[in-house]
């Protein structure tokens, strides 16, 4: 039992000696922790440390292999998510668990739609109620929009809103902020603070340690499925180096150290002028680009900052030929190009790591090898169309070392990897093509601190090799850490531009939030 047994408040939930095996893998080994009402407990650890597994056990998704759980003084053995829900344990899962085909309102009221006198669902009441609920998290979309039309960030907010609208005693949040920008994060943190005052217990997983440090009362750190230790807020917030040391098992090096401004001497590789898109009937909510001008030089990292819905992803997709362009020109190495499909863009030397890894990047059921080589089938095959598997494997082995990808074998299905490692495989996919321009959209979403710095280093190395990198990120510290130059976007326009060394969070926020500021 943890040491706080003497604390005045009774324990709400106690986990005692939980172990979980997946055929072959031990995801959790003898983990214990507890949480009290009105407490925010941070659950931290590297990718694959076992955080999500623990939370899934608590919320009844899967049973533990051994160990037990006490909830509210009684033995707690949930056999389904419903059991957890009934006791007031509400979970926000890491992989979004909304129903894409249903509306926002229905997702919020799933399984408990308000009914009228005849027991029939009242759509009117459902709509009105959900409008209020999503307003709490700062969303102002029509609750009758199907979820499939929302951006990842909006979906995340809907999911948070749904959890908050349930009567709960314990809220479990698995990386709720990974897709959010600063504004939404702050709003969420203040909501969490309010819940804490209402004596709700919150278990909170994040890879953004500043957040964790700012809000958590206590932290439990996991490492390789084992308990690495507990941290308590003593007087002030828990300091980052303490957390990192517990997480990785050694002293923390400086995080987010701004790389010394590199000498960026390259020519302009990619140049975009007056780029406009039209409303796509298939994606009616998508932001329309409204005359974007942007230049990308060889060997530089261009950071693109903006709030959710500012059109950054649309810009990336338009350049990449994934969406149709209405007007404007794109030139690559001085020659005008008009990629009509990603295949065209790729052939021209452009790569894109998309923001939604699960739906747009990985082939979940396929092995790591085919996931890695899918964009370079041409160079990994001979003239007769046969795969040159040896060459392919050697290349993967090289990247495995270079990016320190943690995997069992090239045949392992990629869905068995932790998020950070999946992301590295996707990066390797593009590095194997040696592109002139690489666009990365939220490259470290859900990636742990250690791996995150690795990804940053990789981006810097790429730039050093002369590749023009455009990095879209919702995490300002990240943008500030690696960008040579930063542009800000708002409502489909560029609102500002500055060298990375001159930028700071306040300036960027101002440009991101400001309406109508001419491009310098």
């Amino acid at each position, binding site marked *: 039992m943890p040491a706080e047994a003497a604390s005045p408040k009774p324990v709400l939930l106690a986990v005692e000696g939980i172990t979980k095996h997946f055929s072959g893998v031990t995801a959790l080994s003898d983990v214990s922790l507890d949480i009290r009402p009105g407490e925010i407990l941070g659950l931290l650890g590297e990718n694959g440390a076992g955080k999500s597994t623990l939370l899934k056990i608590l919320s009844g998704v899967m049973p533990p292999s051994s160990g037990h759980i006490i909830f509210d003084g009684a033995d707690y053995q949930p056999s389904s998510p419903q059991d957890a829900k009934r006791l007031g344990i509400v979970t926000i*899962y890491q992989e979004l*668990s909304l129903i894409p*085909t249903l509306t926002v309102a229905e997702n919020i009221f*799933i399984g408990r*739609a308000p*009914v009228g006198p005849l027991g029939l*669902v009242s759509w*009117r009441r459902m709509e009105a109620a959900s409008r209020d609920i999503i307003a709490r998290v700062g969303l102002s979309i029509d609750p009758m929009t199907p979820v499939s039309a929302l951006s990842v960030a909006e979906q995340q907010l809907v999911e948070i809103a749904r959890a908050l609208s349930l009567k709960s005693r314990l809220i479990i949040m698995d990386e709720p902020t990974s897709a959010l920008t600063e504004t939404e994060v702050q709003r969420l943190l203040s909501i969490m603070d309010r819940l804490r005052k209402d004596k709700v217990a919150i278990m909170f997983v994040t890879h953004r340690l500043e957040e964790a440090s700012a809000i958590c009362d206590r932290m439990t750190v996991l490492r390789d499925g084992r308990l690495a230790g507990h941290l308590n807020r003593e007087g002030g917030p828990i300091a980052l180096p303490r957390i990192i040391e517990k997480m990785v098992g050694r002293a923390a090096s400086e995080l987010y150290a701004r790389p010394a401004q590199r000498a960026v001497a390259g020519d302009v590789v990619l140049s975009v002028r007056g780029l406009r898109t039209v409303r796509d009937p298939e994606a009616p909510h998508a932001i329309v680009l409204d005359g974007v001008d942007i230049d990308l030089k060889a060997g530089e990292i261009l950071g693109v900052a903006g709030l959710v819905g500012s059109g950054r992803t649309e810009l990336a997709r338009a350049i990449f030929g994934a969406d149709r362009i209405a007007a404007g020109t794109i030139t690559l190495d001085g020659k005008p190009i008009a990629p009509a499909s990603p295949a065209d863009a790729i052939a021209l030397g452009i790569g894109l790591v998309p923001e939604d890894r699960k739906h747009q990047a990985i082939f979940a059921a396929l092995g790591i090898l085919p996931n890695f080589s899918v964009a370079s089938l041409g160079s990994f095959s001979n003239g007769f169309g046969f795969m040159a598997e040896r060459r392919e494997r050697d290349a993967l082995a090289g990247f495995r070392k270079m990016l320190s990808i943690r995997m069992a074998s090239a045949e392992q299905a990629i869905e068995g990897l932790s998020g950070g490692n999946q992301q590295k495989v996707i990066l390797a996919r593009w590095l194997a093509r040696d592109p002139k321009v690489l666009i990365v959209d939220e490259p470290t979403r859900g990636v742990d601190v250690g791996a995150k710095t690795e990804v940053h280093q990789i981006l810097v190395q790429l730039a050093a090799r002369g590749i023009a990198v455009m990095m879209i990120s919702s995490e300002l510290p990240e943008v500030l850490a690696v960008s040579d130059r930063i542009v800000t976007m708002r409502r489909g326009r560029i609102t500002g531009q500055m060298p990375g060394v001159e930028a700071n969070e306040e300036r960027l926020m101002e440009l991101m939030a400001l309406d109508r500021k001419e491009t310098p």
Partner: protein
Amino acid sequence: MSVAEDQRGGINFARLLMSFGPLLFLVALIVVFTVLKPSFMDPINLFNITRQISITGLIALGMTFVILTAGIDLSVGSLLAFCGMVAAVVAKGGTANTLSLSTSGTQGYGWFAALLAAVVVGAAAGGVQGLVITRLKVPPFVVTLGGLTVFRGLTLTISNGGPISGFDASMRWFGTGLIGPVPVPALIFAAAAILCHIVLRYTRYGRAVYAVGGNAEAARLSGLRVDRILVSVYVIVGFFAGLAAFVLSARLNSSEAVAGIGYELTVISAVVIGGTSLFGGIGSVGGTVVGAALIGVLQNGLQFNNVSSYTQSIVIGLILILAVAFDRWLKSRVRR
């Protein structure tokens, strides 16, 4: 839900017409056939069509539930024959005396027992298939394909290959009777369609069906009893196969071992043409009704114009594809 349905629960007719391709297409077909031969619009013919679509239509209602969960049921044709045979045995009080067409007073257990037997057996058979799907984790396609052969075999075994014919007038009324000018099977179909529409649109159960089809894993994480819902949709389609079997037997005054062969494809077509996605989560009862009507009108209209049978096949195939293509095209243009 179909895009056409106003998400607030009501139905906006202008938008319905504008954006719901199959309905527009159906209207266009009716216009064409009427121009070609005005007697097409003869009420008798229209009622004939409603009676004709009621059998596959009833099954298609149940199939809508199944397909909404991303499942499929290939066994419905065989199950129809099986339930029909069960109903016949009950109605005749055994397998002896299977051929007397005359309605010789009270011979068996009466129409109510026959109806009950058909729907209970249908629902139970569906339930068993649902359990195999959820418990043994065998894909619905395989389970119900197995069901397709098994139920046919059982039907032939019960009836020893032959038909069982000759029911009471009270039973036959369900197939051949009229209420006012409207055929009873058409009324049964209409009532069932309205009921299904209400269940899918306005009950928690119905919304859960959509949720399970939209993303089963997310539905489970949201606390829905996914397996129970999956079993229930196979029970529902089985129930409707039983009901359709009863109506068909009553209409033909005979239950045949070869009834319903190939119905699975007609039924699934009706559902899919009506806009329900085979990948689950999207669709509506209204769409299915329109889909069934489209197929019925097409067949009747071509027959009415004495189009040769071979050409009929070709035309029907092409028009089905066209109808769906048109719907896709409209949706891609009109959306919001």
